[in-house]
């Protein structure tokens, strides 16, 4: 067994040394393909993260038909705290609402002279947990609010939320579509590059079959070679992404017009980095296998 592992590993390494140009071509193709997919993934993830920050502003305002008493405010606040998905609750009395309005008007506050202090309705401002900051989540909470509160009107930026939902869905659809397309193109390019490297070595494959080598004996070194190339390709793509990412960070992401000042770009997590390298290995092995099928006929 050890003898076999040693022999196959040596043969894989020797093959790579004997065909350095072909080997480099396969490695670079895989590195570029993986880096392209990972870059695309990072772009989608970061846009989603950025979009998720906009939803931080989402809150539901429940305007009440009559101002509740002090005891009712306490009771209603306790009831509201029981609703799943509610993060913050803030009661705004008619007087506090008027005060805010006055602040808003600034120098034009004289416009409010003669207007009753309790003209504006009392309201509850309800902040939501991040996982409920979407249309379905809000609708669940709104339904509960209507049961608990004597609601006159409910406001939560319905139109904006609908548009935002459409945007996110479209982003995910385009992400999945382009991602799938890129993945397919990557598989195609890698398989063809490996096929080209095997084509150059078809004599070797033919002679192997001729002298009585089993399929296993023929395939294992090539698969091992594909795995090594995929591993190196995966590491190279990771290095390329790391360097590009730190360059972007060092140049300052806030230079981009759409990023908020305190926005941190997301990079691949440790698990995703490992996945990228494993994907390289799998790509290399599958690419070799699919091409070998064409060249080795026993």
């Amino acid at each position, binding site marked *: 067994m050890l003898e076999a592992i040693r022999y196959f590993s040596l043969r894989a390494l020797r093959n790579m040394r004997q065909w350095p140009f072909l080997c480099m071509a396969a490695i670079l193709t895989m590195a570029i393909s993986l880096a392209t997919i990972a870059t695309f993934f990072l772009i989608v993830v970061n846009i989603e993260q950025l979009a998720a920050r906009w939803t931080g502003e989402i809150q539901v305002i429940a305007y009440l038909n009559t101002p509740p008493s002090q005891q009712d405010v306490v009771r209603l606040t306790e009831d509201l705290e029981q609703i799943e998905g509610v993060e913050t609750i803030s009661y705004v009395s008619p007087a506090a609402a008027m005060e805010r309005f006055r602040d808003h008007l600034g120098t034009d506050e004289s416009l409010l002279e003669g207007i009753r202090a309790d003209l504006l309705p009392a309201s509850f401002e309800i902040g939501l947990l991040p996982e409920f900051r979407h249309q379905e989540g809000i609708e669940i909470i709104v339904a509960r609010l209507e049961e608990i509160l004597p609601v006159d009107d409910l406001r939560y930026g319905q139109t904006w939320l609908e548009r935002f939902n459409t945007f996110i869905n479209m982003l995910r659809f385009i992400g999945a579509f382009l991602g799938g397309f890129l993945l397919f193109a990557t598989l195609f390019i890698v398989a063809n590059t490996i096929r080209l490297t095997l084509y150059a070595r078809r004599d070797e494959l033919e002679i192997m079959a*001729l*002298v009585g080598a089993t*399929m296993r004996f023929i395939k294992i070194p090539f698969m091992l070679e594909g795995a090594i190339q995929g591993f190196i390709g995966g590491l190279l793509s990771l290095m390329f992404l790391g360097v590009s990412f730190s360059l972007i960070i060092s140049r300052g992401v806030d230079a981009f017009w759409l990023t908020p000042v305190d926005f941190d770009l997301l990079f691949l997590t440790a698990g995703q980095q490992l996945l990228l390298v494993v994907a390289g290995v799998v790509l290399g092995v599958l690419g070799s296998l699919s091409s070998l099928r064409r060249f080795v006929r026993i």
Partner: protein
Amino acid sequence: MIQLYNVSKRYSRDSVAVKDLSVKIDKGEFVYVTGASGAGKTTFLRMLYIAERPTRGQILVDGQNITRIRSHQIPYLRRKIGVVFQDFKLLQSRTVFENVAFALEAQGKKRFEVSKKVYQALKEVGLEHRLQRKPLELSGGEQQRIAIARALVVDPLILLADEPSGNLDQDVTMDIMELFKRANARGTTVLLATHDYSLHRRFPRRVLTLDEGKLVGDQRPLEMATAKQ
């Protein structure tokens, strides 16, 4: 050792390489397969090491019906057969030693065994001093001798040679024929496809003659001598 019963090989409706061929070759025989170009010599040999499957008929090699053999069993059959080609089919990126060792490694032989047998096989063909050379650094005759060493290193029951002297001059051809005769003397059945009639005049052996895929002659040395008289 080799038996063919009504074997035909058809590539398309109009292209028949071998037609209704029946022949029996005993263990340890030395047989020439002759005929003009396109007579079906190569197809005949290719069917014996299952590079081609016959369209009709049965082929038995060492008692095994190879027309019914499964793909995964083919390598094990090929280990009993050494094949030598006109174009040598050597790996140019490997040394002489590696080229010969390749056949043994493919059969999963141990390292010490490989080294010993490769050296013996190269000594047999007189190239033990060229171990570390690459094939392209050697002459055509030397390259063919490496190919023969590769075919013989596995101690095959059968040695198939397809126009082995096609690219070689007369002197080298005589050396190559000596190697085949020696292998035959050790008990290996040899089938040599050639259109060089001078070969069987110099080394008289059984001759199978093919014409347009059909067996038109099967002469043994005695019959040939009688025919001459």
